Structure formats: structure tokens, C-alpha cells
């Protein structure tokens, strides 16, 4: 069995405070990188840290009630909490929904990755093409393509996030891709 779900199961059965704190910390350290990516690619960095704290607190204090038995179910539960916290945040501050970043700024962030994994000219070319695909269309399309291809949300998750049905989102993303490809080629 996966280490993460083992820790979660142990946490649910643990009565002592010190052990609970130790387990909660260990679990949060394991889930933090993926959730940070999700949050930091959804809201501006100046508010992302606060939202992140809310999510981790909700996960830690809700684990006693988590009823799943697999790592996959636990991740789904964590992401569901994260989406709810982001939606709460959007309701309070609609302006904080991630505004599209200019391609030049995005590229500057991408350059940071080259410090650890150098970019060959071919890789650079591929990444520039990907960036054009993701930023060439109208803002609504760019956001949908970004959520799907960069943040990694599937159609169902984007549909839930936007209160739309699965097929509507699937069709929209398909049309956005058509548009982006025609603009880039």
C-alpha cells in the first residue's frame, strides 16, 4: 500500500496529540508540492500563500472524516478541498482569478527551469511553440487551455470549477485548440 494512504489511515486511528501533529505534518509535506502548483497556477502569488494555508488546514482537520481507502481517493478529496477553497476565494475577490500573464513574463518564469535542467535549442523551440499555442487565442480560450494542459485539470474538473457540463467544456477546449492552432501555424 502507498505510504501516503498508510499515513492517512494511521492518522485517523491516532488519539494522541503529539503523534497526530507529527503525522499531519508528514502528510502535508507529501501533498504540499502538488497542491502548491495547483494553487499558484490558479491565483496570483500574493494571495496564493494564504489560500494554500487554508487548504492545508482544511485537509489536516478534515482527515478524521475522510472515508476513502486509496491514495487516489485521498488525492481526489484533497483537490476537491482545494477547488472549494479557491471558489470561496473567487467569491470574495473575483478580481483575484488569475489574469493571463503576458507571454514574455511567462517565458521569464520558464527560464528558471533551465537552471536545473538546461534547455537545448530544440527544447527551447518546442517550448516557445507550446507557449504560443497556450497564449495565442482570446483570453477565455487561453485560460481553458492553460487549466487543461498546464494545470492538468481534466474536463470533468474544469466543468465542476465553472459550473458547466462535461460536454460543453470538452467542446469549448476543442474549439479553443482549433483556434490556437490556426493562429500559430
Amino acid at each position, binding site marked *: 500500500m502507498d505510504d501516503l494512504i498508510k499515513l492517512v489511515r494511521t492518522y485517523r486511528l491516532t488519539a494522541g496529540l503529539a503523534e497526530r501533529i507529527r503525522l499531519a505534518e508528514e502528510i502535508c509535506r507529501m501533498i504540499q508540492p502538488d497542491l502548491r502548483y495547483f494553487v499558484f497556477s490558479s491565483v496570483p502569488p500574493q494571495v496564493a500563500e494564504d489560500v494554500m494555508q487554508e487548504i492545508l488546514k482544511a485537509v489536516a482537520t478534515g482527515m478524521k472524516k475522510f472515508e476513502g481507502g486509496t491514495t487516489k481517493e485521498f488525492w481526489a478529496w484533497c483537490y476537491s478541498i482545494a477547488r472549494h477553497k479557491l471558489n470561496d476565494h473567487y467569491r470574495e475577490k473575483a478580481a483575484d482569478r488569475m489574469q493571463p500573464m503576458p507571454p514574455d513574463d511567462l517565458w521569464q518564469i520558464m527560464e528558471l527551469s533551465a537552471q536545473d535542467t538546461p534547455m537545448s535549442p530544440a527544447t527551447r523551440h518546442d517550448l516557445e511553440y507550446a507557449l504560443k499555442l497556450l497564449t495565442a487565442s482570446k483570453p477565455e480560450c487561453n485560460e481553458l487551455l492553460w487549466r487543461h494542459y498546464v494545470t492538468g485539470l481534466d474536463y470533468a474538473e474544469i466543468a465542476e470549477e465553472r459550473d458547466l457540463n462535461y460536454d460543453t467544456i470538452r467542446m469549448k477546449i476543442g474549439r479553443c485548440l*482549433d483556434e490556437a492552432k490556426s493562429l500559430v501555424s
Partner: protein
Amino acid sequence: MAELSQEDQLRLHEFSVRYRAALAKKYPAPENSLDTVKDAVREQYEQEMDAKRSPTIEPPSPTPEREPDEPEP
């Protein structure tokens, strides 16, 4: 509707992997990022202990009014 070629899928995948690495570098988790989590677990534990120590007191069940005693002969 457009389908992504395998080549484009790989490009977008490489982009997301690198973007993820870049974001983690630009916005690393602060050292004390889990302090509030520990506080929240502690607070939840204390609430549980308080609830155990002082179980909710059931309101007294209504008893029928007692008839006055018969006067002694």
C-alpha cells in the same frame, strides 16, 4: 474538432513539467508553512478533549406535576 498531434502533446507536457519546476523555484514553500497546520490540529484536539470532559447535559425530562398529599386523618 482538432486533435493534438503526439508531437504537440509532448511539447505541452514538457512545458507543464518545466513550468511546474520553475514555479517551485520562484515560490518555494516557506520554512514555517506548516505551523498553522500544527496549530489547527492542536486546536481540534483540544476541542475534542473539552467535548469529552464536559458531555452535554441532557435537559431534565418533564415529570408530571405531583398531586398534593392527602391530608392525614
